[in-house]
């Protein structure tokens, strides 16, 4: 071999060797499911209609057990929804967040718990009161 020209041999790659081809290679019968592929179910999409206005809160206490809101449940709250009679709302009442069912009649607002051990609350001018958002779903561990 001539000394002027030296040949190098490429070193064998130490990778796993297989090349992944994303689109797949036709070899045999194509999967009949390919044409019907759909995206997986997303809980975010099911539970959140308005991302920008959605917040979460954790339930503390028993006041709404009748409506299925147990201690430590996760609430999905949509601030963009209008407060209406019978909706479950997260409110800020006199320095504390609370979740109750809204009762609106004859220009009066009441916060109704769903537990006979808790009193219904009438909102008056004296109260520091804000309806913070409307509860749209409850997520609970079983």
């Amino acid at each position: 071999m001539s000394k002027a020209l030296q040949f190098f041999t490429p070193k064998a790659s130490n990778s796993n060797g297989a090349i992944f081809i994303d689109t797949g290679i036709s070899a045999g019968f194509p999967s009949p499911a390919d044409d019907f592929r759909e995206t997986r179910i997303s809980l975010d999409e099911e539970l959140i209609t308005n991302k920008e206005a959605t917040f979460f809160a954790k339930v503390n206490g028993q006041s709404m057990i009748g409506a299925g809101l147990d201690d430590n449940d996760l609430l999905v709250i949509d601030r963009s929804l209008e407060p209406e009679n019978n909706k479950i709302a997260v409110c800020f009442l006199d320095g504390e967040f609370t979740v109750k069912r809204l009762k609106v009649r004859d220009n009066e607002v009441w916060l109704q718990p769903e537990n006979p051990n808790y009193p219904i609350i009438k909102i008056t001018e004296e109260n520091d009161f804000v309806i913070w958002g409307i509860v749209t779903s409850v997520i609970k561990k079983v």
Partner: protein
Amino acid sequence: MYALVDCNNFYASCERVFNPSLQNKPVAILSNNDGCVIARSDEAKNLNLPMGAPIFKWESFCKHHKINVLSSNYPLYGDMSARVMKILEHFTPDVEIYSIDEAFLEFKGFDEYDFNEYGKIIRKRILKWTGIPTCVGVAPTKALCKVANKIARKFPKETGGVYVIDTDEKRIKALKWTAIKNVWGIGRRLQKRLEAKGCKTAFDFTQLTDDWVRNNFSITEWKLKKDLEGIPTIALEIKEAKRSIATTRSFEYTCSDIENIKERISTFAASCAEKLRDQNSSCHMIIVMLSSDRHKKDAEQHSASKTVIFPYPTDSTLSITKAAVEAVKTIFKTEIKYKRAGVIVTGLVPTDNHQLNLFLHENPKHRPLMSAIDRLNKKYKTDTIKLANQDLQRTWKMKQERLSPKYTTKINDIITVK
């Protein structure tokens, strides 16, 4: 027409959304490390708590006036800002995010619109959906939007938080009301030169001749003048992904130990790398900076920076921290008390389509490792996984003694309701 939507006292407002008992009470937010006041509610401003007040000096003042002092909660402010900006996209496709709490909108083909009404709808929706109060200034140019916004903010009762400059009469009145130092882009030095020339208000500035402004200042001031005259000259800047990312910090104490400095640099570099991956960029170059405390006049001063260019663009924490630590070793001088350090990554390219180098490339094993680290850090908590050269016994934890919960970004921090 353009609009400027500006969130009122944004940081304080974010805190109030999740802690409504702070409503109508003075609130002040501190800088990183709880150093000084960087944001104030109207109530705190009215008590004359100055911007930039070092909290150790003003602690008793705040106690006396019952000012609620909080550490800055950037994850919360960032998320609330993203919500506000996204809502703005409902109103026009052309949105320029100008800062964390303000955005310019452009209305092309909205000729028949009642902008006062439209501005009120924007305000109302942002307030209802996010709880953040805003002001809206509408005008034919961006510089005039700034002026209109100030008017809306200053006269909430009369304007309802929305002011539209749509006639020349209103424009002139607004400009005469605006002191030259409050004009967008007029800094302290420019203000002095203009005042010497007899310019007291924005209106006076528009009365100067174009030639004089261009000869004595620069094209920027000339553009500003045109904008204030109602001729749109400053265009909307739709931001692309950031062109450089920096993490720089002052230390709580000065530091002259190379091991500690290496740790800091490594942590900053890791933070830059994570931000790079977050926006799907890789960097060609990093700059490492180190400087002593320039306020300590008696101590020996030293500041230096070192640039490292990579043979191939990278977003790997391993490569970036390694280069940063090597770089800081070359600029570090013993006997100097360092107070500040930083890492900047720049020369950014999209990770997916950068030019391949025939001979040199990132170790392919880094990519899956980095995505695994990012996933774990996002899922559990920041810095669950870090490099061994980061954070020696957590010496450097940021001082955040008055931090509110991360209500929207950490599941264990969400509000509880009874």
